């Protein structure tokens, strides 16, 4: 579904039947491409498995208030005792405040997924803009952008994230912003190299000869061609972002008013759940993180293989 599927080089040849406008042809061909991609994806067992697991977590996150009472999140209304072992009332025991771990897990999925998606959006938007600009344009602004990309690629993530998070303060938006700002460079580099190669293709030369402006070239030709790659990259990025959210929350840099899987583990570590043998407070949040991150990774790898068939050798 990359270049050959959506490039207008072969336009017109399959325009039998009713006369379609160029845009309609392109639209139809993109839909075909998507259909083909989906059929390929279905053939990728790990990817489908990831999609199923992820859908379950997404449903849990969306319907969280139906699955558990939000009142159960309030420390003052905690129904159980401190670090109670699992029982028929509390399937996975209670935390240090007497709240049900199951309730925390259900509502934690919302924050982890939300921050993961928001951070990814920020990161992908910055990465795509910087990558497109530094690849498409020439001259010093492009060179400066490329240098910046290289810099962010080199600078170690966690120390920079710690510094940023300390300066910005602790909230849901800030933690997403911190992850987004520190993780866009890989995307930018990928988009840049794609843009550089697309820019030299004959159909873009044709577009330029027909008088297409830079904006038209970027939005109508370059962007649609890099989009599949961005899409695959996004999925892998969510995995990274969720891991980053968990780690930052564990270090106490998450939003202190909300429960995420990372902040649960922070709580577990702070009260010494390891020494009290409260496995129900340590194992489940981590398992949830692993499931979701692994799902995103598997889906992302499947998408990457569709976009870049050369990668299929690694299976």
């Amino acid at each position: 579904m990359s270049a050959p599927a959506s490039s207008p080089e072969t336009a017109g040849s399959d325009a039998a039947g009713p006369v379609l406008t160029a845009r309609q042809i392109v639209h139809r061909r993109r839909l075909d491409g998507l259909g083909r991609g989906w059929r390929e994806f279905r053939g990728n067992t790990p990817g489908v498995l990831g999609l199923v697991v992820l859908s379950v977590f997404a449903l849990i996150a969306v319907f969280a208030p139906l699955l558990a009472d939000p009142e159960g999140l309030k420390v003052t209304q905690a129904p159980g005792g401190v670090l109670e072992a699992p029982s028929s009332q509390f399937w996975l025991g209670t935390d240090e405040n007497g709240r049900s771990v199951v309730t925390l897990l259900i509502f934690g999925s919302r924050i982890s997924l939300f921050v993961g998606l928001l951070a990814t959006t920020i990161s992908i938007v910055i990465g795509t803009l910087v990558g497109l600009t530094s690849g498409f344009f020439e001259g010093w602004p492009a060179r400066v952008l490329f240098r910046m990309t290289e810099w962010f690629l080199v600078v170690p993530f966690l120390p920079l994230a710690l510094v940023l998070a300390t300066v910005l303060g602790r909230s849901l938006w800030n933690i997403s912003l911190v992850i987004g700002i520190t993780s866009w460079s890989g995307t930018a580099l990928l988009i840049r190299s794609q843009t550089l190669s697309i820019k030299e293709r004959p159909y873009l030369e044709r577009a330029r000869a027909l008088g297409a402006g830079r904006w038209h070239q970027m939005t109508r030709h370059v962007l649609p061609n890099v989009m599949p790659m961005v899409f695959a990259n996004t999925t892998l990025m969510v995995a990274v972002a969720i891991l980053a959210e968990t780690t930052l929350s564990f270090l106490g840099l998450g939003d202190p008013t909300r429960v995420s899987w990372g902040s649960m583990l922070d709580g577990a570590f702070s009260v010494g759940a390891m020494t009290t043998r409260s496995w129900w407070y340590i194992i489940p949040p981590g398992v949830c993180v692993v499931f979701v991150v692994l799902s995103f990774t598997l889906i992302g790898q499947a998408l990457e293989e569709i976009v870049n068939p050369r990668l299929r050798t690694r299976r």
Partner: protein
Amino acid sequence: MTTLATPPGGAAEGAGGGDGEPDDPGEDGDAAGSPSSAGGGRSGYGGYGRFVGGKVLGSLGSLLFVLVVNFFLFRVLPGDPARTLGRGRFRTEEQLNAFRSQYGLDQPLFTQFFTYLKNTAQGDLGVSLRYRVPVSDLILDRLGTTLLIVGTSTVLATTLGVYLGVVSAWNRRSLVDRATTSSTLTLYSMPEWWLGLIFIATVGVGMGFFPGVFPTGGLHSTDVAPGFVNGVLDTAWHLVLPVLTLTLAYLAEYALVMRSSLLDEMGEDYLVTARAKGLRDVDVRRRHAVRNAILPTTTLAAINIGFVVSGAITVEYVFSVPGLGLLAQEALSIPDYWVLQGTFLVASAAVIVANLATNLLYGALDPRVRT
């Protein structure tokens, strides 16, 4: 000889996840400044000199940008820095003024920046708000422990990871491959400190079948018998779990990268030639395939050495090992800005230097990357 080196740019892209991709030495960005060298055609010794110069300048630029970020990030703090940094400890105007002049906050921003550059160049990174000692002393003091942990884990993880990657690629789609790939992918999707928590709960404290054997944190026991050997053994015993955790965390990446780069090699003609010559399978693997496929892993290892500080933060926190990582983590709650600034500087400098060293080494080994 069929030891054609893989162009490092091409082979590195098969790396498993989305983060921390190594800085490809074959990147084209530096070519822009020197169009004449391509026409010259002679890539002799002078070519390498120019290459070194460009890379060193680039690294210095990165380092300068780290300093700029470091300086200005802490100046954009909302509110008066004297009040924020003093954490409300200063009541009177005189105390505030004294604090301002102590840290040079009463100077113009430009002057402050140059003072900051000068101090950093002289190794003065400020004084820790928590410990009341120079940050550079603290960092030097903690560096050894971190290097020990991360160094040991890197060596173990590279060896084991490369081995696992080779075995699973060579026996592709076998049971071994499936088991290795799925377990490394799972490890890759796991926060490494969570693994540490589980180790503490199981083999540290003891849970279920697991007896509590290993110490749960720190570097020394209080009841250790006197003597140098006993002390070393005791510390080594304390380091088992942190090193194991970090090794498993790193291992996944090495195994995945090694597997995919070896798979890339396996379709190549020279392997068919080697087999046709009648070489044993082991020799084809060891002397031909692995030798070409190991390059991306080497890059990864070289760059990961630079990520010393960042890798250690969470694991040192979990196991309360007094290294650089724990220093940074402790600084968060105060927040001890100077310590954070200092550790960030050291962490970034380490990566930049490691990157530079890798690039220069590549340039010396493979003339093609000296574009």
